[in-house]
Every structure is written in C-alpha cells, then in structure tokens.
C-alpha cells in the first residue's frame, strides 16, 4: 500500500515505475541494416557505403581494404566501369549522386602508389587447386578470391599477357597501360597464384583433363568470336568486325584507311571504335544504333548501353550518332562499300510480349560510307568447350554462382551471355569461388541475408550539408591523343570531400539524432556494439512509438515496424 508523504511530495525519478511502452499502438522503432542502393547495384558486390564510411574517418587504406574484399581491381574498374552504383545512389534525388567511381579510382591508384598489401595469405601447401581459364577480369578475380578462401589458383591464359579484354579492347585513353600493368602484376605477384600464359584451351590444355586434375574448374574465356553480320545477305569485301578491328588497333596502332566510316551497333566497344577511328583521321564517323540516346522520355530499357561520360566525350569529339536506326541496305560498287541506306527502327513489344525490331517504311535515306564496321556483339569461341556449348552462343550456367551442369565447373563473365561489364565478371569470380569453397569444405553455405534496399524517401536529407558532386577533370578535345588518359584524377582532398557526401543509406552514422530527439529518453547509447551493429538501443519499456527517431534518422537506419 503506497503511503503518503507529508504534503504529497514525490521522490526523484520514480516515474520509471510507469512503463509508457505499453502506450504504443502503431508500431515500434527498429534498426534496419538495409542495403545501400549502391551496394545492391554493384555487379562486383562491393559495399560502397562501408568503404566510404572509412573514407569519412580519413582512413584511406582501410577503405581500400574494405573495397578489395570484393573487387581486387579498383584502379581498373575506377576507370572503365559504367558505375551503376552512381545511377542508383540516393543522393541523386537531392544534389547529385556521389562520384563513387572517381573515389574508387583514386583509392586504386593510391594502393598502387603505396603498395598496400592485399588482404590475403598464402594458401597451405596442400590446399586444393582450382583451374581457371582466362586471365581477364573474371579469371583474375576468381584467382584472387581463391587465395582469400585458402585455395590455390592456377590460371591458363591463351595470350602472352594477362588482362583479357582490359588489354585487348579498351583504349589507353580510358585505361592507361601502366595502370593496367601495375594492378594486374600486383595481383599476379600474390603468393600461391600460378599463371601459365600462352596456353590455349583446346590446344595446350583440355577441359576433361583439367576437370580430372583440379578440385574445380572456372571458365572465364570471354567472348572472342564475332557475331555474323550481313545486310540482307550482302557483306562488303572489306568487312572489318568491330572488336577485331579494335584488337588489331591495340596491337598494331593503326586502322585501315577510311574517310567516311559507319559503325553499326551500340555499346562501349562501338563507341571506342568510333572515337579511335576519328582520332586516327577519319573525316566522318557515324554510329548507327537501334537504341535511343539519353533524353527526358527515354525508356531505360531502350537506352544505348554506353558509359555516359564516354558518350559525352564521343559527341565532344565529333562522333555523329543516329539513334533508333538500322542499316537497311549496303551500297556497293563491286565489293567495295560506297554508302549505306539506313532506316528508322524501333524495338516494339508484340502481342506475344517479345520485343522485335520494326523498320519503318518511308524513312530510308542514304549516307556516304567507305567503310562499314559492324559492332553488334560477340559470342564465345567454342574451341575447347564443345562439350559444354552444344552449339549455343554462350555457356549456360544454372545459377548466379556460375554452376554448369558438369560438377565443379563454373562459367564467369561475358561468356555467360548475361553479363556485360568488367565489374560483372569480377563479381562472378567472387560468387563462383564462394560456391567452390562451400563445395570443398562440404559445409552448408550461410543463408544469404536478403537485405532490403533503402529507398531515397526513407532518408532525411536536411541533415546533410548541401554540396554538389565533384567533377573529375577531363582533357579538352584538342589535347586528346591515343595515349593520354582523358579523364583525370580528383585527388585526395576531393576524394575525401566527396566521400563525406555519402549519406550511409541504411547504416547508422552514430550522429546521435535519435538519442538527442527522443522526448521520452527512450534511446540509450551503448559503449559496446549491439547485436544490430550500432551503438544505440531502444528502451521499449518507455518508447511511445511517436516515430520522431525514424523521421529524423538521416540514413534511414531507424524504421517503424509492427509490434511482434
């Protein structure tokens, strides 16, 4: 029985006996470690929010180490990736996406400069060996992740040098040779990694042998064979397929002479070809593509699949692009091209739901051309892989990890047919090796935590300083040549400043907002890290569920959820 005090005074803090937590009716606050959209979008599976968090604390090397937990080639991807992370970045809804790509490049360059050690250890002498076909980005990534998982990678590369498409098909103006060589050689120097160059599958090594000798086989051969191209059956005598032309140029530094070139196709390779042809002296270079160019009404599915700045630079350099068009007819004199007839075209979804190309009668026109370069994509060269290909254009893995029907054999990268980026190949390497590690250890793989992606609406942007994204310096058109890198470095200061713009979507900033703004003193700070990885707990005995903490959480880490 409560007894009265004289004058009915009350003792301090006794309201703690009154648990206002049972007032909650609409929901309680929870910590949701959502995936930042950059992480969800990254084909290599990088956790950009995590390494940007290190940058925000001024720890560049720690940031690089977090980055290379997924992607061992940041100096390269930081130059050639189409950065879907930036497209997905929630900050694009306020004052501009983070320049993640530029920061990644800077980190990659810093690692090379300071020779930061990759977070790998040499595998045990008796560690299982994994055979890898192809020392392109997919194969190199697979080799790296083998070392991270305590496996021994053995790479078989058909060319004399490692690098794959990076070396053969990307111009030095986008990926300087010295950077490529530095990054790749640092990787190849890791203890426990073996590279056999100039060894071709189907000639020097055989698939069935490898499958017998090695614990697992990873196939990352890329797509070396061009798709056949003709226009109503006609093909010019001087047909130069795009990728082949590019490789020739990368090797020999010269193109066949032409004044008016028409390149047919879309994609980064087509743009690269256009720009190199123009720089080599062609008077006019025109790209004819079925896709659309960026605009306010462009359907993303219809958009030309080119890294935006590459497109910008191409237009700066005078490349003409005719979008939503196709080559209808070749104008030949003998077997020499003199022109092409083009017509407007759209990819239209038919009654069956599938897209087909529809050319519009009455839109035909002729443009002068003395060289036509088809650049419509490549497929896997079946040499050595006949047993797996069965006449198909690509290897057909059964899942995301790249499992092929045959035991312990995996397909990565462009060869899968459903990839198209260096980052995608790198991501495949990680996933395949993770699956291999699980297989070999005969353990169940950890259930993949499906983290929900954090939408922009859940952020509270008022708490972030308004600042526009940094712009990387670009070489003026007049100064561009074949060797000098066109896009420049942003430097340490800008990299740090740009990293500071990261809003940590779905991750606690430890900004103290929830702790400061709870009217009921129901958010408590902890020294120890809690189960959800933060330093705050909700005291649900007193939380009334008002929702202020969730509304004012800058990064959307706090959300209101139904009571269980």
């Amino acid at each position: 029985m409560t007894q009265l005090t004289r004058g009915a005074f009350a003792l301090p803090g006794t309201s703690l006996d009154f648990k206002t937590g049972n007032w909650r009716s609409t929901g309680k606050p929870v910590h949701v470690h959502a995936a930042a959209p950059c992480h969800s979008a990254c084909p290599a599976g990088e956790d950009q929010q995590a390494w940007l968090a290190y940058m925000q604390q001024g720890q560049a090397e720690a940031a690089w180490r977090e980055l290379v937990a997924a992607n061992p080639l940041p100096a390269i991807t930081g130059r050639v990736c189409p950065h879907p992370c930036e497209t997905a970045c929630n900050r694009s809804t306020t004052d501009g996406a983070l320049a993640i790509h530029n920061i990644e490049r800077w980190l990659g360059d810093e690692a090379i400069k300071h020779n930061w050690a990759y977070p790998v250890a040499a595998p045990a002498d008796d560690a299982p060996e994994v055979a890898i076909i192809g020392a392109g980005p997919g194969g190199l990534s697979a080799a790296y992740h083998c070392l991270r998982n305590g496996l021994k990678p053995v790479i078989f590369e058909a060319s004399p040098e490692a690098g794959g498409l990076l070396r053969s098909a990307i111009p030095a103006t986008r990926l300087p040779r010295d950077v490529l060589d530095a990054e790749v050689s640092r990787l190849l120097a890791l203890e426990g990694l073996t590279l056999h160059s100039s060894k071709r599958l189907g000639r020097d090594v055989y698939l069935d042998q490898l499958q017998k000798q090695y614990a697992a086989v990873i196939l990352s051969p890329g797509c070396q064979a061009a798709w056949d191209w003709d226009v109503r059956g006609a093909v010019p005598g001087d047909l130069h397929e795009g990728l082949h032309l590019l490789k020739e140029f990368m090797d020999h530094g010269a193109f066949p002479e032409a004044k008016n070139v028409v390149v047919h196709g879309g994609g980064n390779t087509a743009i690269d070809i256009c720009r190199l042809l123009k720089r080599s002296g062609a008077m006019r270079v025109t790209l004819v593509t079925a896709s659309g160019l960026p605009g306010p009404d462009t359907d993303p599915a219809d958009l030309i699949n080119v890294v935006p700045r590459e497109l910008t630079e191409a237009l700066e350099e005078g490349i003409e692009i005719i979008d939503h068009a196709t080559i209808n007819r070749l104008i030949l004199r003998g077997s020499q091209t003199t022109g092409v007839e083009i017509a407007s075209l759209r990819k239209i979804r038919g009654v069956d739901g599938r897209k087909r190309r529809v050319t519009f009668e009455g839109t035909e026109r002729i443009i002068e051309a003395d060289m036509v370069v088809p650049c419509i994509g490549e497929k896997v060269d079946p040499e050595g892989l006949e047993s797996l290909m069965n006449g198909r254009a690509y290897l057909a893995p059964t899942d995301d990890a790249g499992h092929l029907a045959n035991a312990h054999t995996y397909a990565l990268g462009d060869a899968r047919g459903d990839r198209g980026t260096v980052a995608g190949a790198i991501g495949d390497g990680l996933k395949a090796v993770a699956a291999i590690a699980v297989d070999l250890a005969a353990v169940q793989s950890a259930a993949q935590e499906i983290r929900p992606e954090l939408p922009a609406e859940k952020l509270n942007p008022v708490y972030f300083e308004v600042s526009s994204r940094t712009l990387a310096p670009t070489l003026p058109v007049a100064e561009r040549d074949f060797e000098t890198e066109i896009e420049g470095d942003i430097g340490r200061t800008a990299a740090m400043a740009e990293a500071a713009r990261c809003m940590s979507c779905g991750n606690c900033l430890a900004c103290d907002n929830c702790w400061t703004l709870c009217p009921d003193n129901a958010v408590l700070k902890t020294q120890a890290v809690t189960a959800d990885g933060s330093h705050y707990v909700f005291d649900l005995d007193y939380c009334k569920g008002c929702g202020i903490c969730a509304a004012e959480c800058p990064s959307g880490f706090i959300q209101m959820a139904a009571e269980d």
Partner: protein
Amino acid sequence: MAPDMNKLRDEQPRFCGLESGHRACQGCGEALAARLVMEGAGPDVMVANATGCLEVFTTAWPQSSWQVPWMHSLFENAPAIASGMDAAMKAKGKNTKVLAFGGDGSTYDIGFQALSGMLERHHNILYVCYDNEAYMNTGIQRSSSTPHAAATTTSPAGKESMGKRHLKKDMLSIIAAHHIPFAASASVAYPADLQRKVRYAMGIEGPTFLVVHSPCPLGWKHDSAATIEVARRAVECGLFPLVELERGTVANVMPIRNRRPVVDYLSLQGRFGHLFKAGDPRAEEERDHLQALADYNIETYGLSGQTDDNLDTTGAGIVRRGGGGA
C-alpha cells in the same frame, strides 16, 4: 545479449534531469524541450514550474520524472516562486541556479506580471517558456501566444471566423524592454543551438529568458513523428525567428539559408486546415497575411542568410558521423 537497461540508463554520457515514464503525449515537443534544457542546465539547479502540461505530465503523485529539486505552486506564480528560491539561495550563500518553467499560457498571460517583476528585480534566474501556442493542458484554448489565424477551441474556424483574430504577442520585444542580460528564442528542431543558449544563460549572473518553440501534435494536429519537421519549417519560413538579445538589443540571429514559403509550414498542421479550403477567399487572404508576417520578421531581424553559414538553419542541423554536433 540484451544489455541491462537500468545499468545502461545510469551510464548515459549526459545529465538526465527529466526521466522516462512521464505522461506526455507521443511526440510531445514540450517534453523534448524540457529534456534538452535540463541536459544543458545540469544537476545543481532547482526548478519552479508553473501549472501546465509539463508539470502535470511529470508529477502524478507518487511518481515524479524530475531528477532535480522541483516545485510546482500555481499557474501564475512560477517567476515569483523562483524569486523566492533565488532570495533563499542568496541568503544562504548557495550557488544552486534557479530555473523557472512555464508554458505560453503562464508566461504570456496569467503569469506575465510576475515575470515582469522577476526580471525587473534582476534575480539570478533562467526563465524558460515552453511555447506550444495555446492552453494545451486544459484542452487547446487560445492564449496570447497563439498565432494569427490558428484554430483553437476558443478561437475555432467557422462561417464567422478564420481562427484567432489577434496576432501572436511579441514577447521578445517586451522582454527586450526589460534590458536583461540575455534573452533568446530557440526551437526543438535545433537542439544544439538550444543547448548552447541554455548553457550560455546558465553562466550569467542575473535574469535570463528563453522561449522554446515546442510543437504539440495533439493541439496543432500533426503526426507525432512530424514534431521536428514542423518546428524546423516554422523557423525556415520566418514565422518563428531564432534570435538572441543582450540588454534588449539583437545580438545574434540564426540566418535562414533557404527560405520556405509559410504554406509549407501551415500545410503540415490541422489547426491551419481552414486556410486551405478551396474556393474560400478568406483562406487566401489569411495565407497572404501570414506570409506578410513572416516577411516582416525576416526583414525586422535581418534573417536572410546570404552566405553558407554553418550556424544557419541548414548548417545548425548538419550531422556528423560520430555525433558531437554541438
């Protein structure tokens, strides 16, 4: 492993003057303001609290949320009670700082005289007015602090009325006329700024005055989760200027970097709902009037921020990884 909550509560790295378990509504701006003020004031204080929401929701006998010596007497005499406490402290040679708390009803209306007397006599007291712009505890009746055109139960909107006819009393000008060492307005949307002003006032020997804009989800009719956003917009549109006065002259203001139109603020609150009735010409006139009042404040106090000042409405709210914003 779940932490021991009681132990954790005791180890919080800040002073807790207002504990959990109080009966304030969900999202109460006044509870938040009082908690923030107490944090800035520290344990060596005694509080004289007028009748009102804060007093009622913190001290239902036998429970009290206060961790400091605290007294509630009547509705209109908190400044006088505090004066007595101050006199007692002087007589006994003690340094304990006296705080007086009152809502806008107590401060602007029924306790106005006592406040003026307290200021004139230059007591060493920090007076904090928790301004939720009506007599909330008794059921949302208008006070002289209720803004023009706001609906309350004694100034409802209807065929013959567009809410409160009169203007919000210009309390700061009245306080300014007392020429006390320091007076300021603050808002729960800018907690670091509020605590800076509390700490500054605590260090002054003499009377100081703070009016804290405290949104009331129930009375202003907004979502309980929107309390901070509502308070922020009030400052950003100019209707609640954040200013500091020393001896009656404006010494500092929080510049508004990106002005909002007043409708951004009004539209969040049901008490201004009648100002958005389509086809009602009176509604447009009142919106314009409120915009004019905001413009007037911005001009009078020079609130336009020309440059990016990290103490402006945007800068004051910026969070940093790892906290420590203030």
